[in-house]
């Protein structure tokens, strides 16, 4: 495993409001390359809003206003075309959503197919195999690549969605509560996957599950009512939190 502490994503004074209602208040944090960074907090604290800012999906929400500076590899995300930015910053959603009209094979290649990027047959097969292997799905589906992705189980579908994001070779992968719609066994399987994937991609994981943050992340941010209460190494945060609110949240006093 690479032992670097390079900052890949730098968030400075990020504030977001929707129709004048503040959602995130002056958040500053740095995300390190090839680490899993968990963002935890009770429902409605702005976790999802925060990661949707990073790949500029906030553009889709009407009345949303973002201030502050977010830089990816030293470049402000507002200078990058959202279409190109989203190829560098992949996103996986809460509910598995493989495209219903596409086969497993086509789902992995969706970014290429939908963008009209031409690939030779051997390139396609190579990308599909590589991406499905990296999410541990290859052995399970290699004989059924022509079947629809929606035939898979929930956990498998979610891994297919991760493979679909990886096909663009993103620098950062945003996971928005990727296991909250899955059963415990699939959750455990996908958590293992997240730990493995950090060798190739930086992961930002949104979760409302405290123990999941403890299990998979290197660093944890605790968000409460739109404020960044605490951000530290997971091992430190879970043993000796500095802010009393973090302590109360971790011990289940609220949230």
């Amino acid at each position: 495993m690479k032992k670097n502490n390079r900052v890949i994503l730098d968030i400075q004074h990020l504030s977001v409001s929707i129709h004048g209602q503040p959602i995130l208040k002056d958040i500053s944090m740095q995300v390190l390359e090839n680490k899993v960074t968990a963002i935890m907090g009770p429902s409605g604290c702005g976790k999802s809003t925060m990661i949707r800012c990073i790949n500029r999906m906030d553009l889709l929400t009407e009345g949303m206003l973002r201030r502050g500076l977010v830089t990816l590899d030293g470049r402000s995300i507002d200078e990058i075309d959202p279409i190109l930015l989203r190829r560098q910053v992949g996103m996986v959603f809460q509910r598995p959503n493989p495209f219903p009209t596409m086969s497993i094979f086509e789902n992995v290649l969706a970014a290429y197919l939908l963008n009209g990027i031409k690939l030779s047959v051997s390139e396609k097969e190579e990308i599909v195999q590589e991406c499905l292997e990296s999410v541990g799905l290859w052995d399970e589906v290699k004989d059924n690549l022509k079947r629809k992705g929606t035939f898979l189980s929930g956990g498998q579908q979610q891994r297919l969605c991760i493979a679909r994001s990886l096909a663009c070779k993103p620098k950062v992968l945003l996971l928005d509560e990727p296991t909250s719609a899955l059963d415990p066994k699939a959750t455990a399987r996908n958590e293992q996957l997240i730990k493995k994937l950090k060798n190739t991609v930086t992961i930002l994981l949104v979760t409302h599950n405290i123990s999941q943050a403890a299990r998979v992340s290197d660093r944890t941010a605790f968000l409460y009512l739109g404020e960044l209460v605490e951000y530290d190494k997971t091992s430190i945060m879970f043993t000796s939190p500095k802010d009393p609110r973090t302590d109360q949240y971790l011990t289940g006093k609220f949230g």
Partner: protein
Amino acid sequence: MKAGSEVSVRKAFDLCFVGLVYLFSSLIFLPLIAIFVYMVMKGLPALSFDLLTHLPRPVGSEYSGISNAIVGSLILIAIASLIAVPLGILIGIHLYEYKQARMTDILRLCMDVLQGVPSIIVGIVVYVWVVLPLNSFSALSGGIALALMMLPVIARSTEETMNLILPTYKEAALALGVPYYTAVFKVVLRSAGSGVLTGIVLSVARIAGETAPLLFTAFGNQFMSYNVFKPILALPLLIFNYATSPYEEWQAIAWGAALLLILFIFMLSIGVKLLSYEKK
């Protein structure tokens, strides 16, 4: 004892209610079956290979047919579909995509009103718009009149099926760096494909039997015509002219044409059912 009798009264009431529901829902079938049986009885003797392949001839001559009406109807449906399908789908996408916009409310109201405009009025308006400037009745004007009737059906069914597609698919496409219009067309519209197709087929079934808008536009033609700028015959027009004629022979042909039209619409409806089964 008292409680027991109350329950049995309720049970009897329940039974009566269920009985009535079954009775009235089976009554729905009656008119349809009556129409169909009558059509087959009257139309089947007239229906023959000659009827489908020959042109109309004067009363008394053999081998009179309706081939020009069949071709005419198909040409009119093709013109109407060429205009209404792309436009209707685009309007449907607009209704789906810009729910908040004021324009959308106006557009939706327009579609609802257009759907309610009597077909004869559509015919008169297209007469003024197209027939008078071109100085001739034409297949083109008939197609435009029918397209106006198809438009609201396609637009609303496109919107409604797209509403059923989870927004998360569009988000997933956008998150992959897919441009907005590609996400809408290749992901949302393709996922809604069979529903949109159902709307199109239903709208074709609806206009196939329209007579009123064609009276002032397509007008009718004795001969075979493939020219879109010339008058053209359609099945409903032929039925209207022949059924009101004094000749028994022509009346028989009208029954045959009517049966053909009903069968066409019947097949389209079955096609729609098959499409929606496939969707599930």
